[in-house]
């Protein structure tokens, strides 16, 4: 228990850009007065930047929002534009090829993003290291395994997307070029090795000690019955509400809160917070995991759902297995097509797209004119949807650990934040702490 009447902690520098992400925690006695996660939100800039540009540009432009999840931004963008133009890529002759490669590309992003988060950001928390560098000095082989997994994900993005960072082979209507059978066969060799390492990853993280933090938020995830949701789907909540991309802005209300440039999201029909991301995806879709992922999830002790956010590291590891299994299946089933894309003709209208970024549901909506000019754009990333839940959980966890000194408490709060892999977490192991006592 603290002996100070009131204390205030601030962990600044959560984002790479100084001053654009920080955590403020105010405590009075033994209860939390305020938890504020200030995050900088680039999509607002991009929404303005997109207006007046061609309907063909959103996949390229939005992919620049995040270096870790460019495919998620590209995917929700082309889904929304194709919807606005009335083009159903899945109805075309080449549909199976385009749909398969889109899922394959997205699997690459999941593998790379989750491997980075598990090995370089999250695992050091459980093993008592201040960061990845210190862990790498002691456990070089382990970190090398994480690097190889990340490389396997990047290899998919390089082959299908043209490059790993901001893929350039993606377009509205499909791709600019298709991979050869030989290229895919070479990739599959690497992915089969990676699958074994992904299984070992699940076994490794399942043995960590997990602090207690049971979350009771509503879950929101996409669902695609018969498949684990990745590159498309219908939104589903844990209380059973279901809506498509076109209904997203009716069901998810974004509100300005005074302390942040980011909007806070809530579900229109329900009070309180909701959570999107691996825990939500798993809880609402664990029955659709492919066989190897389902088996390893069971042996890791995950039930049909997991509500301890510290165990999200296990769910992410299972999702790497799932993505690798899916990637190998898509490659095995691949039959080359004559065309890499279908024509998309602009028309006046609105369109909407939803996909499952590694850190949760990513929504985009566009209005375009008859000539294909973008009139308005709306982007709702997963991190802003999770902000209220993260703040709540940080506060709940902090309240139970008030006996820690300020620095230890700030570190504990950062651990909670990392459970959610928010975009700002890229730098949270490298942050500088500013403690203010009042």
């Amino acid at each position, binding site marked *: 228990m603290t002996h100070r009447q009131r204390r205030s902690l601030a962990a600044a520098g959560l984002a*790479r*850009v*100084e001053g654009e992400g920080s955590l403020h925690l105010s405590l009075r006695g033994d209860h939390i007065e305020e938890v504020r996660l200030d995050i900088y939100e*680039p999509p607002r*800039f*991009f929404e303005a*930047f997109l207006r007046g540009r061609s309907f063909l540009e959103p996949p390229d432009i939005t992919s*620049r929002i995040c*270096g*870790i999840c460019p495919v998620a931004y590209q995917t929700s963008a082309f889904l929304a534009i194709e919807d606005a133009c009335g083009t159903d890529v899945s109805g075309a002759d080449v549909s199976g090829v385009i749909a398969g490669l889109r899922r394959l590309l997205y699997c690459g992003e999941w593998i790379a993003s989750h491997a*980075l988060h598990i090995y*370089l950001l999250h695992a050091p928390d459980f093993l008592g290291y*201040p*960061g*990845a*560098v*210190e862990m*790498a*000095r002691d456990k*070089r082989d382990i*970190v*090398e395994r994480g*690097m190889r997994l*990340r*490389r396997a994900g*990047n290899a998919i993005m390089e082959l299908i997307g043209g*490059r*790993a*960072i*901001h893929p350039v082979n993606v377009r509205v209507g499909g791709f600019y070029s298709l991979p050869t059978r030989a290229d895919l066969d070479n990739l599959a060799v690497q992915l089969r090795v990676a699958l074994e390492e992904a299984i070992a990853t699940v076994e490794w993280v399942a043995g960590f000690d997990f602090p207690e933090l049971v979350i009771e938020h509503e879950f929101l995830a996409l669902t695609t019955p018969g498949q684990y949701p990745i590159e498309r789907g219908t939104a589903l909540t844990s209380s059973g509400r279901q809506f498509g991309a076109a209904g997203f802005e009716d069901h998810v209300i974004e509100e300005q809160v005074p302390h942040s440039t980011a909007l806070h999201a809530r579900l229109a029909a329900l009070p309180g917070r909701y959570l999107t991301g691996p825990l939500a995806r798993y809880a609402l879709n664990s029955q659709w995991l492919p066989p190897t992922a389902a088996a390893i999830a069971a042996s890791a002790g995950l039930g049909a759902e997991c509500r301890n956010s510290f165990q999200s590291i296990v769910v992410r590891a299972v999702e790497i297995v799932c993505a690798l299994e899916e990637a190998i299946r898509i490659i095995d089933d691949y039959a080359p097509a004559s065309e890499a894309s279908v024509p998309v003709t602009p028309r006046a209208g609105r369109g909407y797209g939803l996909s499952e970024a590694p850190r949760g549901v990513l929504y985009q909506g566009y209005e375009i004119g008859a000539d294909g000019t973008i009139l308005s754009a709306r982007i709702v990333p997963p991190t802003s949807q999770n902000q209220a839940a993260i703040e709540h959980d940080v506060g709940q966890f902090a309240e139970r650990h008030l006996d820690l000194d300020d620095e230890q408490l700030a570190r504990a709060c950062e651990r909670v934040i990392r459970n959610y892999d928010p975009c700002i977490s*890229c*730098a949270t*192991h*490298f*942050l*500088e*702490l500013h403690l203010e006592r009042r």
Partner: protein
Amino acid sequence: MSCRAVVVGIGNEFRNDDGVGLEVVHRLEPRMPSGARAVLSDGEPTQLIEAWGGVALAVVVDAVTGGTAPAGTLHRLTLAGDEQAWMSSATAFGASGEAGRRREGHIASWHGTGLGTAVELGLALGRLPAMLVVHGVQASDVSQGRGLSPEVAGAVDGLVDLILAELPAALDPSAQPQSGTLRQRR
């Protein structure tokens, strides 16, 4: 011919002057000599380690903020030698170990944490180039937007020529990398 040199441009083209590293690499790409390759990066440490592991020379170009130098100033930092030498040089962009990561006031590259951590992680994993040259271009405006300020744009051509001039030595297998210290030029 295997790759003996790599030039990595780090940056974000939607952050005005922060795009300078990418612009330099775009200009270099058509002129790269055989045995050297150009890479674009957002500064994420594992990307950098993958790009530079095992090469004789890695050249990193990034925007730099902080300090009092005028916009467009070129900073050049050379890292080579033993671990101590690497770390003492790498502190200039934030690589100073756990304690250093908690300290304020280092001269931060715009992607300083990424580059500093990449060097530390590269040391821990034994994945560094024989020599790393970091070219920092003093930025004037890193707010959201596209396009370089006139001062930064004016520094690009000279930096491209400078990098092209330092690649041949690294591409000669008999050449030995030479260590250097922080220099600043206008």
